[in-house]
């Protein structure tokens, strides 16, 4: 990455203007050409340095129901329970974390009822309790990763 790559990445992470030619606006700000902004961003995307480029949607606004759940899984059963949990298409993310509650996963469904059904199903199949921590209030979502 050269200095201009870094400037472009840092600038475009914060959100591009809504306009007919947003990359020309960015180029103006950064004192380079529109073509440079476009080529460099496209290269970063192709190269996997960017995971995506475009609108970031608030999943909850799109409808549906979400929750964060956790389980205390005995170490010797960890792989087996991971398989049970991951088999649900409604489980979007699942992380092993260092804590007594060592498995944390996000469940995304069409409705609140479906969430409850999935969690109950996981409890039945694993014979382990599922702790449910639905979001009650959101203070911030987003991250700026300066490069």
């Amino acid at each position, binding site marked *: 990455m050269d200095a201009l790559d870094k400037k472009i990445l840092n600038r475009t*992470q914060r959100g*591009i203007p809504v306009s*007919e030619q947003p990359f020309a606006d960015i180029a103006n700000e950064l004192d380079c050409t529109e073509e440079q902004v476009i080529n460099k961003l496209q290269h970063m995307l192709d190269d*996997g*340095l960017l995971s995506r480029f475009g609108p970031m949607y608030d999943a909850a606004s799109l409808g549906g129901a979400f929750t964060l759940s956790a389980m205390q899984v005995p170490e010797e059963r960890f792989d087996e329970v991971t398989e049970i949990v991951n088999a649900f298409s409604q489980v979007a993310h699942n992380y092993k974390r260092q804590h007594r509650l060592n498995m944390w996963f996000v469940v995304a469904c069409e409705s609140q009822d479906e969430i409850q059904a999935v969690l109950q199903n996981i409890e039945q199949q694993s014979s382990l309790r599922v702790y449910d921590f639905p979001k009650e209030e959101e*203070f911030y979502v*987003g991250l*700026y*990763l300066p490069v």
Partner: protein
Amino acid sequence: MLDSTYQSRERKKAPLTAIEREFILLTQQGLPIVSRPYDHLAEKLKLSVAEILAMSEDLLERGVIRRIAAVPNHYRAGYTFNGMTVWDVQDDVVKEYGALIGRLPFVSHCYRRPRCLPEWNYNLFAMIHGKNEQQISEYRTQIKQLLKDVLQTGQHKSNDMLTSSKILKKTGLRLQKKKD
């Protein structure tokens, strides 16, 4: 013409219109990195570019779109460490302090979630990201310092940071095409 003309609406939590759903379906994989990225959307949705831009502004204002931006791959950008910090904050001030913590540059998500007593006494979650273990430990100390007057200690004592030791599954959240 009427049904394809986009009209801005007042209510923030207004449900998505059919044309907005189409817009989302067309853009959730990303926006083309070309000189005029909205032109093909205008064409597909049979709207003018001005109407597409108005729709984008409105969705941003309503919080449906958080921002239109480049999203770096955490790992490739060197941010390989994350920690889910969890705090037991007095309920009457959790809103105020949650907003404060959410504004820290290294915090990616900050939420109030229910306690689950006696096993889980934490009500404020803040996800932090850093380039090494020392960095996230320093970030956690900064949060603790900000919260020092409002943390509840009691029988459950300390506040935790749950570092991620393994990604077991990660899929994107996507709006599904309606099955009609």
